[in-house]
């Protein structure tokens, strides 16, 4: 037996030398194989003859070598594998981001189609301009507030420049409140990974902003819409976005308080849609209903939109873009559970489908006709509702979530109009606000614990699991998120727009509203060659005179 220290040292040294020799031998074998492979790769002359089958294109010769004298090594191959993973994820995230950007066209068509001809130019212009307003605000400061402390995402190379989160200490725990890195995407945040995440997050932000234009259409002053949208892109959206996605306190409810995996919102039922819908409610309350919307006894009048074909085509454009919205939120198609992109896409489709049926059948039974605009809203309601749970549920859960959303949107539209007496020309408050909140809640109910995005979510080991699959604490985290959306985000939006009402005024003059916003606000009719027919009696001038007398 080896008992003496020198003998033990000799044995250890022998083992280390043997192991390193083994490793060296293995490395030498690997390098020899790589060089043999490089030597066997198709030559330039072979490739010059053409490669119609593709079997000769893309070989070990395409791996960049760090030392041309040494040739291709294991390190070179490892580096290329890492680059490939990040490149795949970059391309995935960017392409899906482009799809989400295209949703702006869908929103424009849906909203304009549900408005009257005399406001078509104005409604389209709001949806067009909101892109510029939101993008500028987000580049200036919004992105920094939301994602300034979001470092650590392995899918996009780590995002290490985004390493500044302002935190507070409360009840013995640390809570993130807002980010601090990334203004103007300058300095150390001028980074390839940061650019990708900026584009992706920006198009989501713009979706939230455009929701508000629908609820306030046909009477919102273009100037105030611009200012309100800039401020929403700079502050309202990014603050909640940080709390949910940027390293903030809502996501940390799991690590800090053991509430599930913290607030979970895969693609933004809460962050995007509920924020947009609740802000829409806030502004719609302040701006007031359109002239002629309600009668003296409070009963509502239907003000019919001018182009149902635009509405339904717009809904399909949105459904198409949603394939970027939900599956794209994996932020990659390589590694860390990202192969669930197919499941997420199917969940999205299914929820849209059952949402359509939910609304269609509900309206058919209760009103006697399969209402086209509500069918479109049913599709959107299902898509909105599945947005948060899409990465965490199975197809059965997705179908149920969508179906409930389809019925919920019909009930909500009636409630908002008849009980709250809020005028929402396109149903944005119900589609995005109500169904967005339902989507957030459904994560806490239907998440099945089968997803695996790198073994953890929000820093808590394991898979997101809802009440029906055994974790009630996840439901608690979701309810706190809903409470934050209703209690904080709505209030913040209301106060901000209340201030805008004091300084700018939200509403156009009664005269402009009756004439239609196209000429007074935009200087041009949407359809200059149309011959306008007289509007129904409840929308005529005497209503405006009475309205002006009250004001």
């Amino acid at each position, binding site marked *: 037996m080896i008992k003496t220290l020198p003998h033990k040292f000799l044995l250890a040294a022998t083992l280390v030398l043997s192991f390193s020799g083994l490793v060296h031998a293995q490395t030498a074998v690997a390098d020899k194989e790589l060089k043999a492979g490089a030597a066997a790769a198709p030559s330039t002359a072979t490739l010059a003859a053409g490669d119609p089958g593709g079997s000769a294109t893309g070989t070990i010769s395409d791996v960049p070598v760090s030392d041309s004298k040494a040739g291709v090594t294991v390190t070179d191959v490892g580096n290329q594998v890492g680059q490939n993973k990040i490149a795949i994820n970059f391309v995935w995230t960017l392409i899906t981001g482009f799809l989400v950007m295209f949703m702006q066209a869908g929103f424009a068509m849906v909203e304009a189609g549900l408005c009257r001809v005399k406001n078509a130019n104005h409604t389209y212009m709001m949806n067009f301009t909101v892109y510029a307003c939101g993008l500028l605000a987000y580049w200036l400061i919004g992105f920094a507030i939301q994602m300034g402390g979001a470092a650590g995402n392995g899918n996009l190379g780590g995002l290490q420049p985004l390493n500044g989160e302002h935190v507070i200490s409360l009840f013995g725990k640390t809570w993130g409140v807002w980010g601090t890195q990334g203004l103007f995407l300058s300095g150390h945040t001028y980074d390839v990974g940061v650019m990708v995440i900026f584009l992706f997050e920006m198009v989501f932000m713009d979706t939230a902003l455009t929701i508000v234009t629908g609820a306030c259409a046909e009477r919102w002053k273009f*100037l105030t819409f611009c200012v309100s949208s800039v401020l929403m892109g700079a502050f309202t959206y990014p603050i909640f976005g940080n709390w949910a996605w940027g390293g903030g306190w809502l996501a940390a409810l799991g690590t800090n*308080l053991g509430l599930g995996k913290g607030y979970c919102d895969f693609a933004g039922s809460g962050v995007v849609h509920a924020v947009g819908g609740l802000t829409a409610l806030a502004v719609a309350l302040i701006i*007031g209903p359109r002239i002629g919307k309600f009668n003296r006894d409070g009963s509502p009048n239907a003000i019919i939109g001018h182009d149902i074909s635009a509405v339904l085509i717009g809904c399909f454009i949105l459904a198409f873009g949603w394939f970027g919205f939900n599956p794209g939120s994996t932020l990659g198609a390589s590694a860390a559970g990202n192969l669930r992109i197919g499941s997420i896409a199917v969940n999205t489709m299914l929820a849209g489908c059952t949402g359509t049926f939910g609304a269609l059948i509900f309206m058919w039974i209760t009103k006697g006709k399969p209402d086209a605009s509500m069918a479109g809203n049913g599709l959107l309601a299902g898509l909105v509702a599945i947005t948060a749970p899409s990465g965490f549920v199975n197809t059965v859960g997705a179908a149920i979530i969508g179906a409930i959303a389809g019925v919920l949107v019909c009930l909500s539209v009636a409630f908002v109009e008849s009980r709250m007496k809020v005028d929402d020309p396109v149903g944005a408050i119900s589609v995005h606000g109500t169904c967005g909140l339902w989507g957030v809640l459904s994560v806490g109910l239907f998440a099945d614990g089968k997803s695996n995005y790198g073994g953890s979510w929000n820093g808590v080991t394991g898979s997101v699991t809802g009440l029906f699959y055994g974790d009630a604490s996840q439901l608690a985290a979701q309810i706190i998120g809903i409470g934050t959306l209703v209690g904080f985000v709505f*209030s913040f939006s209301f106060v901000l727009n209340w201030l805008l009402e004091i*300084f700018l005024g939200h*509403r*156009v003059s*009664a005269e*402009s509203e009756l004439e239609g916003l196209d000429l007074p606000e935009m200087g041009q009719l949407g359809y200059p060659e149309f011959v306008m027919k007289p509007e129904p009696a409840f929308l005529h001038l005497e209503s405006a005179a009475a309205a002006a007398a009250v*004001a």
Partner: protein
Amino acid sequence: MAATRQQGQSFGLFLVGLTATCAGIYEVSSGIGKIGLALGLVVLAVSLLQFFRIKPLEGEIANGVQPAGMKAIGVLITVGGWLLALFGLHLVSGVGGRMLFAILGLAVSLVGVVFILPAACNKNAIWKA
């Protein structure tokens, strides 16, 4: 009124002020950043004053005066519900208790959003005339 040149000028000034303010925040550790921040805030304030000055030119709007006091109460109740839910996170440690506080807080917030604020905003609504 309608959209005018003055609105365009004011909005342009607002964007310049916001950009300068954000640039000042970005470089706030340096002297020039502090100057930029101050300048930006001044320009923002000027733009808000411009907005306020041209607001009356819009003319009569079809919306009644909304009682500020009632709206403030509505907002306070809405926020209060949220704070109640947060307070509950600290007060109790079990999942059930925290969920109860969260639901209670949400219910209080919804009273503000669904009942008080709509009542305030519709108090002098045009359709009641």
